[in-house]
């Protein structure tokens, strides 16, 4: 059976078939949770925020503009949710979260400290850079898709991503990431 397109499912939900929303949740929960995890650095917070995003999206589904694609709409909502969370809890709590996150990732990656170094370095980037890195490497988005989700022109996406990667590289050089191989 052919998979239904996102916008068809949205239309079904609006027309009263709520169960179709379950299909959309299945389709996007993993990516949204991972975006949250990379942007907030906290597992439990990411779970909560992911749920919030889907609940809010359901409430706003009636005003969804069918000219746009559902994925860009809900990812944008997720990014905004993460930005708002980080604004609220920036500072000490965020640093604590990052440390805890590094430990957790290192644990999960069988002691892969290289990976935890990269994640830690990503968490030091400015939010606008961090979003682009997350969308590019953890969501495997093309430049065009990143531009669609963030509503930033593709050329700017490229140049900002370039700067983000330069900063990452510099940080990793300082942490001797490249030395022991």
């Amino acid at each position, binding site marked *: 059976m052919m998979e239904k397109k996102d916008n068809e499912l949205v239309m079904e939900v609006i027309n009263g078939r*709520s169960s179709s929303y*379950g299909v959309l*949740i299945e389709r996007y929960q993993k990516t949204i949770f991972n975006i949250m995890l990379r942007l907030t650095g906290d597992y439990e917070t990411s*779970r909560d925020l992911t749920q919030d995003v889907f*609940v809010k999206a359901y409430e706003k589904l009636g005003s969804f503009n069918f000219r746009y694609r559902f994925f860009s709409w809900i990812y944008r909502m997720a990014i905004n949710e993460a930005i708002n969370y980080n604004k609220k809890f920036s500072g000490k709590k965020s640093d604590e979260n990052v440390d805890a996150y590094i430990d957790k990732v290192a644990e999960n990656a069988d002691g892969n400290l290289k990976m935890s170094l*990269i994640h830690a370095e990503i968490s030091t980037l400015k939010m606008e850079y961090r979003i682009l890195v997350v969308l590019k*490497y953890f969501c495997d988005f093309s430049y065009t898709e990143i531009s669609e989700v963030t509503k930033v022109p593709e050329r700017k996406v490229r140049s900002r991503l370039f700067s983000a990667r330069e900063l990452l590289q510099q940080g990793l050089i300082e942490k001797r*990431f490249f030395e022991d191989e």
Partner: protein
Amino acid sequence: MNEKQIIEKIYQKLDGELKGAGLEEFDRFLEEHPQHYQTFLNIQRMENSLISGGKNPEVIDLKGDILKQINMDKYNATQNEPIVRLKTSFWARPAVRFSFPFALGIITGILLLVLLQTDFNQNPGSESGMAGTLYDSRSFDNMKTAGILDFDSPVVKTMCHVKYSTKLVEMRIELSSLDAVTARIEFDPGSVGILNVINVNVNEQTSVYSASSYIRIDNVGDNNFIIQLANKTSLTNEIDLKIFQNEFPVYQNAVQINQ
């Protein structure tokens, strides 16, 4: 190439955007410059780590939790809500109600305009159509005749019909001359005042001047005038018509009003 351009090229290569001759040239460049080749290796390693990190996303199933928090009847309710449509009669519709006074206003405006145009834009050239003035509503036909001055000579032809009422004196003058002649209508300014001089049919060579006690017409060709004077008193007065050619009098006569 500077450092920044080299790094840009490295990312293009890693993104698969550098192809063909460009890619070969850059590969040669990296081979010839070991320090840049090391930069390339570092970036490649970082990129690979990032990509491999992204390939192992956290697996999570929040569907049940999310669906529990959602009001599943939200859109059902919208669909099942009875549609209440207020049926208004045709005449009670706002568009109909407001369009009537609007149309009535337009029609009244057009009627007023037509009526006013009839009153003011009557062709003054038609002598028979003259139905009095605002000053005296009596028509020329209903006024009392003071006299008709008729003169016919090789130099000039004229016909001057003078009528009057208690308030108005009206003179209808036809002047015809091959060469330039001057006609002067003279009156006592204490008894008669100029109201209006209408050029009914006047060519470009002809002109009319007025003063308190006379009206001068410099005439060439065939011209018609209507002169309206205020009849200030009820006393008998004379109005003179004099015609000159090159300062020499050609014709002179007078009519009496308020006889």
